[in-house]
């Protein structure tokens, strides 16, 4: 049987399984910690920093933190919220996000976080980087303009031999996430769909699939991301 530990979340006493991931434990307790590079079911990476919370007064990424006895966690302060908002703003300024023409609009985690934090305009200059849209793959389109380099696709998508079908190339601000032509050769429609779904933004799309949910009925049209966790 799993043993439970006591910890505090924003001053409230909570219980979690010992060693549970803080993001998941907080969700169980009705507290939403925003995430982007984290995806339930795949090992966390701590890449985007949006899940930053205070653990015993120190900033920690909640997706890579395990709950231990007596931990004091603060998820919401004006500074943390402002920091999260700037993470979102940086990602909008760093890529080319033309939401009105994006297939993922309304179902996009980055956009939903921008709504949540009411980002009207980034406080950073738009970089307008030159990036490609790759359409050579028979089942997938890769739009590098929208990729936030969270690497969820690399970590979470495997072919039936257990090989990753996405890989990153280049380094630093030139980093690109590519489809591996070899390992992705014979992927099924289901795996292509899983790849599209694991991407938090519209950087991986299934070929031949466009806008299929009417505006007003998409995931984040009515309620902000994280509302489901709120008590």
């Amino acid at each position, binding site marked *: 049987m799993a043993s439970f530990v006591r910890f505090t979340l924003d001053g409230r006493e909570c219980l979690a399984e010992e060693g549970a991931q803080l993001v998941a434990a907080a969700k169980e307790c009705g507290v939403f910690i925003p995430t982007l590079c984290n995806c339930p079911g795949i090992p966390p990476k701590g890449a985007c920093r949006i899940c930053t919370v205070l653990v015993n007064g120190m900033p920690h990424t909640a997706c890579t933190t395990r709950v231990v006895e007596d931990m004091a966690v603060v998820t919401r302060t004006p500074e943390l919220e402002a920091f999260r908002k700037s993470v979102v703003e940086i990602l*909008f300024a760093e890529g*080319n996000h*033309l*939401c*009105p*023409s*994006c297939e993922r*609009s*309304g179902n996009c985690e980055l*956009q939903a976080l*921008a*709504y949540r934090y*009411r980002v*009207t*305009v980034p406080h950073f*200059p*738009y970089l*307008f*980087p*030159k*990036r490609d849209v790759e359409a050579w793959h028979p089942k997938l389109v890769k739009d590098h303009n929208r990729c936030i380099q969270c690497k969820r696709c690399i970590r979470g998508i495997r072919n039936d031999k257990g090989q990753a079908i996405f890989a990153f190339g280049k380094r630093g601000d030139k980093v690109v996430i590519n489809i591996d032509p070899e390992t992705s050769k014979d992927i099924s429609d289901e795996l292509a769909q899983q790849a599209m779904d694991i991407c938090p933004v519209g950087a991986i799309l299934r070929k031949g699939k466009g806008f299929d949910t009417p*505006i007003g009925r998409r995931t984040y*049209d*009515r*309620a*902000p991301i994280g509302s489901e966790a709120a008590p």
Partner: protein
Amino acid sequence: MSPKSAKAKKIVATTSLAGCFGCHMSLLDIDERLFDLIELVEFHKSPIDDIKTFTKECDIGLVEGGCCNDENVHVLTEFRKHCRVLVAVGECAIMGGLPAMRNTIPLKECLDEAYLGGATVADCNPGRVIPCDPDIPKILNRVYPCHEVVKMDYFLPGCPPSADLIWDALVALVSGKELALEYRTFKFD
């Protein structure tokens, strides 16, 4: 209307720069609230009343579209000079929008595609001319969001911003009350 309320009316100017007039259409989409609006504000330079030049100072300037040519820059600068509060309305004013898709492509390539090599050009430009008459506004190297050209005071997202958001913002600006920015009206598409 009593002369007192006529005097108290705020003066609004609007313009469409490198936009599609969708944001103006959304303004008209406030439907019957248009009657309330004309009680609240007086329109000055705007495509709505076709006043072309500023002859008085305005309280609120609504700017649709970013700057893709030197005429846009000129108009935007005039708006900054004559409007106390300047609002970037819509995706194009805020980040360049769809016209800014050309920002990652060198200008020469864009013009070549549009006038010489593009699939739809074929025979319709036999002289192979790229227009450059001094009467046509000069195109800029890229599309600039409004706040990269002048100081903008507020930003209303959306493509176009919903009529409700534009209405809420105008009421807030006229009455001096804080804008609630309801989730329902806060969208990028």
